[in-house]
């Protein structure tokens, strides 16, 4: 899919995703080694966006499995279309039992869910398993089979093996410890906060109307906030929100009043706001 790490960076940038060297290297390796990519990191640094960008670059279909507590095999893998099966049975009352039975467990009545969808077919696909840590432990066991051999067993149909492996991205916010077995099957990538220069470029790309100096100031203040010991430090998504807010407020430069009034956009806890205001020498909020 890619010829070199630089190629990854350039082509991801073409879709509007600016990748750090770490991200580009890992994506390149995941493609070359044919292994799933486990992406961890704080919320709002672009884990899901990465999968979307890769899909766009590869001209692949994005198949997404959003995990949540209680997601099960039927939601992740496949289901039988019971209603249609019943219709089929009642439509063919004259048939012998054997004919009926073999019929209703055929592909026609199979509802493929994300994992099976990603394995079947010859078109290129990117499988995004989002917020893997939210799913129950049993689902992880299911993923093990899919991710190591890229195959799924449907009792009535037999084992379905991928003819073309999808590019797999798993994301996690580390709210639950994923099993060692699952981690072993994946390349591991931690996306942290970007460095100043990269973040400036991201802001300029996402908010084109902002001028260079203001973007630089925004990134510097965000950097200072991240160095404080806050309950929830601002992430890239908040940086962009803030840049947009500043534009909307018509601010050309940062000053005390503007920062004080818009601190709520970047900080989500009142105690954080108070702490930041004190450290930045803002007057009482």
């Amino acid at each position, binding site marked *: 899919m890619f010829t070199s790490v630089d190629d990854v960076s350039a082509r991801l940038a073409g879709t509007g995703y600016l990748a750090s060297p770490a991200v580009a290297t890992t994506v390149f390796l995941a493609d070359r*080694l044919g*292994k799933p990519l486990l992406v961890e*990191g704080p919320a709002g640094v672009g884990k899901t966006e990465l999968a979307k960008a890769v899909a766009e670059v590869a001209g692949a279909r994005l198949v997404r499995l959003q995990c949540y507590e209680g997601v099960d095999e039927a939601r992740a893998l496949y289901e039988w279309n019971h209603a249609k099966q019943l219709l089929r049975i009642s439509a063919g009352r004259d048939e012998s039992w054997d004919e009926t039975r073999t019929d209703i467990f055929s592909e026609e009545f199979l509802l493929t869910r994300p994992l099976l969808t990603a394995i079947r077919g010859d078109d290129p696909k990117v499988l995004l398993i989002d917020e893997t840590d939210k799913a*129950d432990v049993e689902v992880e066991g299911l993923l093990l089979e899919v991710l190591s051999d890229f195959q799924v067993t449907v009792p009535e149909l037999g084992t379905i093996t991928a003819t073309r492996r999808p590019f797999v991205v798993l994301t996690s916010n580390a709210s639950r410890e994923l099993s060692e077995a699952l981690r072993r099957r994946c390349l*591991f990538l931690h996306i942290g906060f970007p460095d100043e220069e990269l973040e400036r470029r991201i802001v300029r790309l996402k908010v084109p109307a902002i001028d260079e100096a203001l973007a630089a100031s925004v990134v510097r203040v965000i950097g200072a906030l991240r*160095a404080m010991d806050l309950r929830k430090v601002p992430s890239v998504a908040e940086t962009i929100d803030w840049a947009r807010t500043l534009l909307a407020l018509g601010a050309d430069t*940062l000053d005390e009043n503007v920062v004080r009034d818009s601190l709520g956009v970047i900080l989500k806890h009142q*105690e954080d706001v108070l702490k930041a205001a004190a450290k930045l020498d803002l007057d009482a909020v």
Partner: protein
Amino acid sequence: MTAATEVAARLTGFVAALRSHGVRIGTGETVDAARAVAELGFADRELLREGLAATLLHTTDQRKVFDAVFDLYFPRGVGTPDAGPADRDALRDRLARALAADDGAMLGRLAIEAVDGFGGYGSSPGSDGWSSYQTLDRLRPQTLLARVRDSVRAQGRGAGFDDRLLEDEIRRRIEAFRGLVAAEARRRVAERRGRDEIARRAVAPTADRVDFLYAGKAQLAELRRTVQPLARKLATRLAARRRRAARGTIDLRRTLRGSLSTGGVPVRPVLRRRRPARPELVLLCDVSGSVSGFSDFTMLLVQALHDQFSKVRVFAFVNRIDEVTGLLVHGRADPEGLGARISAEATLTGWHGSSDYGVALGEFAERYGDAVGPRTTVFVLGDARTNMSDPNLAAVRQITERARRVHWLNPEPRAQWGTGDSAAPAYAELVEMHECRTARQLSALVGGLLPV
């Protein structure tokens, strides 16, 4: 040795060093790493670093150890740079310029030159080496702050609002430079003494393996940052356990009664519902100087688990005991000031400042005895060093009789229990005592011991 075997040897040595630091790496990962090396080549060191990290690591907190070991096994340069005799003032000038421009590559080069010029000590082979402490002591990068600040201001950058951020930014850059110097000195020493030994000894352990009793200030701060994810992890584990435990056995009477409507055929088994347990937690924390890092940390963890329990009460003691639950209210807790606030606002010491378990536990049994009931699990946190005073076993017995369970977490290694003024063996006969020296041990213990 051919190039290929040399790469393989370097890689396996690297993996072995990581393993000795508790990073679990299987053979499969090593093979993947070798494939990554083949794909990426050695031309770009940072790409190589990221590639190896992606294939060998599994969690974020392993990264710090990884970076330090990587610097040893895949050094930026080999040997000494060929530079003339070092001139301290000239180097400081260049350092100031690099700091002002935030030029990372230049800072890296300067770190190498600095260690080369000022870090060497000793002259006879065997007793010589390289010291980052000595380098930094001679170079004093921290005194450059004002100069760098002024030069940035003189260039007209950082005017306006950002100006107030400048000093902190420069401080962070200087801190980063100190890290570079330390890495370079380690590399030099490693070259001299053999890489494997240095990798084993000179690389700091991951935060969850730091010994509570010997953790420095920076390490404690890092430990505190691990509290939130740790608490969440434990909370999900508890929730899962609770969900499983909620399913009870079959209620025969109600199943039979339900079967009347289906002609005596028990179609729907009725499960007996467990009455939801409402576990209560009482924490008794020794907060005297010797173990304060440990109890601070544990209190934070329990506070973060607050919503899992119907009632949590925390008591702190040195030689008198006082309730500090109010100081730990969520949102108010500022981890840095916690210890100071507790000692400022609670009465913990009588006429002397050293810990006295006997008096404190006796006072607890007497004054707060009603805090402990049949649903209460009690955790005692401390090293059980009573300064030769009476351990007051009667008070402990009294607490164990009233509580559902009592656990004692001791941050000292098991081998030291009972040495000197430690009353640990005596207490351990009455309550379960567990060794708990690192965050990793603590999370395993807390996860296993907490009532569902």
